[in-house]
């Protein structure tokens, strides 16, 4: 099993959700996140007051999938989240040792 984590632009969440549904993903966790990558923080002058934008608002999406589905999910994610602009985000995958469904106690791929 893999944990796929994606950082995407906030307005792309709906597109990503639809794309992932199409490849058969049945569940995901979405949270508000802030950070910076190469896009970086920047300084702005707004209404006369200078302020520093340290972190850019993003959305973090986490999906647990079986190994064979991982590549397909990543591809769908990248395609749906891309605008071609700077700050489109990142996607990464990590191996997952075990998963338990809390309600039933099912383990492993059954719990996905």
């Amino acid at each position, binding site marked *: 099993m893999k944990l796929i984590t994606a950082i995407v632009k906030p*307005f792309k969440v709906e597109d990503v959700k639809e794309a992932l549904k199409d490849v058969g993903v049945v569940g995901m966790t979405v949270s*508000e996140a*802030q950070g910076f990558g190469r896009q970086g923080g920047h300084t702005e002058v*707004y*209404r006369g007051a200078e302020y520093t934008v340290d972190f*850019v*608002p993003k959305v973090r999406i986490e999906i647990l999938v079986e190994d064979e589905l991982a590549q397909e999910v990543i591809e769908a994610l990248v395609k749906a989240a891309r*605008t071609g602009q700077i*700050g489109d985000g990142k996607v990464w995958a990590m191996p997952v040792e075990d998963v338990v469904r809390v309600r039933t106690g099912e383990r492993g791929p059954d719990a996905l």
Partner: protein
Amino acid sequence: MAPTHSDPRATGRAAGDPPASHADDRATGRPPASHAGDGTADRTAERPPGVANPARVAYSGATGAGASQVAAVLEREGRSNGGPALRVALVEAVDAWLAELLGDAGPGIALVATGAYGRREPAPCSDLDLMLLHTHDAEEIAPLAERLWRPIWDAGVRLDHSVRTVDEAIAVAATDLKTALGLLDARHVAGDAALVTSLRERALERWRATARERLQQLRAACKRRAERHGELAFLLEPDLKEARGGLRDGHAVRAISATWVAAGLDRRGQAAYGLLLDTRQALHLELLEQGGGQVGRARAAVDRLSLQEQDAVAARLGEPGAEPLMRGVHEAGRTLARALDQSWRRVDARHAGPAVRRWRRPVRRQLAGGVVAYDGEVLLAAGADLAARPWLALEVAAEAAGAGMPLAPQTLRRLEARPPHLPEPWPPRAREALVALLGAGASAIGVIEALDQAGVMDALLPEWGRVRCKPQRNPFHRWTVDRHLVETAVHAADLVRGVSRPDLLLLAALLHDLGKGWPGDHSVTGARLAATVGSRFGLPAADRSVLAELVRNHLLLADTATRRDLDDPATVRAVARAVGDPGTLALLHALTEADARATGPAAWTPWKARLVEELVRRVTERIEGRPAPAGEEAPGVAVSPGTAELVGRQGLALQVDGEQVTVVARDRRGLLWRVAGVLALHRLDVRAATATTAEGMAVITLSADPRHGRDPEWRLVTDDLRRAFQDRLPLERRLAEREAAYRQPAPLRPPPRVLFDDRASDLATVVEVRCADGPAILYRITRALDASGARVLSARIATYGAEVVDAFYVLGPDGRRLDGPPQRAALVTEVIGALR
């Protein structure tokens, strides 16, 4: 009657199984016939086979027929509804069971029910409060007590038990409020009835004798409870028992009436109380059914009616849906909260005797014409004529909120007897007062709620009834619509420094969700309503359209910021098209934040704030890139023919026309602050002012309002002006003396702000000062400007409710625009310092 199953022995046993642990208990060994009665067989026979009620399991273990009967009652009644029938049946069954357990204990021993069970109002998950009352030795009674409690524990019932003599019970009640309240509900269940009667009589007698002290404790307890659990009338997931306006407030009303100071619940109160009992009962049955006989949540939360159960509870109660159910619950909460408030007022009236009398008389302080602060409350002066000056209703409310004090009961009674009928459009004073009320911050909540209870909100804003107590069924919202609107205004009051029109921000906050009272898109309906209400409020057409625009677009920024690509020029273009100018955009930004903050803890996060801020920044840049709208460069004011004649005289002149005061004097440095200072000295509140020059003469036109409703001696004002211009009047000292006499603790207001607008004028620098209104505020600002070396060419002073937004067209000492950062910094320091 709580099948909580903390004891594993109690779970999973079928009715016929032999008792696992206390098989040899004498209590359970008794033949069930006498208490089960004839009815039991019939009722059992009625039960359709195969319908297992989880509650049954709890009662069906070790305790014989009595417990079975309780379970049967829960099963039969619980399936059908949550009405009073279940409570009656439950009490009967539990009484019978307990009588069976106690058996024939002889004289001097009785089983007493207190709490909900004592009141004959047990809910399926409530505790069983029992007292074994006796006249024996403690050692003697212990075995009996143990024999009594064990089967109840074994049945999985949550038991709150005590073993006491009458003296002991009275002694415990003397130190413990909860026990004292419990004794007021004491009810004989089994055993020696005369003993229970004597306990009741003595408990009531003590309660009355110590009422003054006990009621104070009760009041403090009610207050703490309200603070912790919030208000039933407004919370979308309220605690039916603990919230303000919940069942416990009903108990408090009864406890007060037991002192003979106030009457108990009237018919409406009874109905509200009954509705809450039924709702709680249905909630408990639902929780038991969902949990398979166990309550899948903490005991403390068992009375919290959360969103996920509301539909099922509504169905159990035969309501068409969760919304009507919750509206009824909110209204019941409001009725009970009000009943309790009224009881407290009776208590105050009755107990305001020698024990409460102060060592010194309360200070009577005049706040405004016809409005007085007295003894920690704000009231209408006895002579104030509400019929002739209906805006006084709003002014008294605004003063109360501004001073952080409640409205006096007698004033509320006056308002209730004669709700204010304002002419349409409203006189400016009424609108100003409404804005001041809304801008007062958190203290406005209680005042508005009191106005609403007195029927004033309906008189002022007939649309309010459509959103009163209206629930909002989604997981983000915390409040009913009416309370959300008030909360939004409270949050908006913190954001007034960010906008140049605090009045429009506060009014938009109050009105933005009014459209939810009608079908259709609430933003669109709301915009229409806002325009109508705005014209009733007497707003000029331009302001009305901004108000409507704010309401129509109140979700625009939040929606766009989170759902659209901010890097896409089309996104920014679309918002810029919808919101045409930077002022409106700033208002919308503040409204968006206030709305979200008033929605619930999840609706406004730093994350979302950042996105909205970024959107606003980009849209502002886009809008400001356009040429400035025409007509801004107009610091001069046309001089009317009458004034021109005064100018022609080339000397000091004062002209008064209603609230309009015109001062003409030879132009000189520091003229404006001297005029402002003299007017303040004569208790004139300057609400608007413009200053301009003509033929070497300065013409200052002010709208001044006598603070206490009495016009000053204008001749004396003229004399003082002359002396001030000649520097023969110690303005600073005299004003300081005056202020000290009126100094009141200012409620927490946002700090003042000073902004520079370089786009507004080519000739001068425009300095905008935003701060809270107060005595001599114009004097303080203009004097500070003078001290910083800035020369005021002209000024536009505006007061919106309790907020001041003053714009000054100034030049530096060198006669040029004030462009240098050090100059600007000095000016800001000087002005902010003067406003401290």
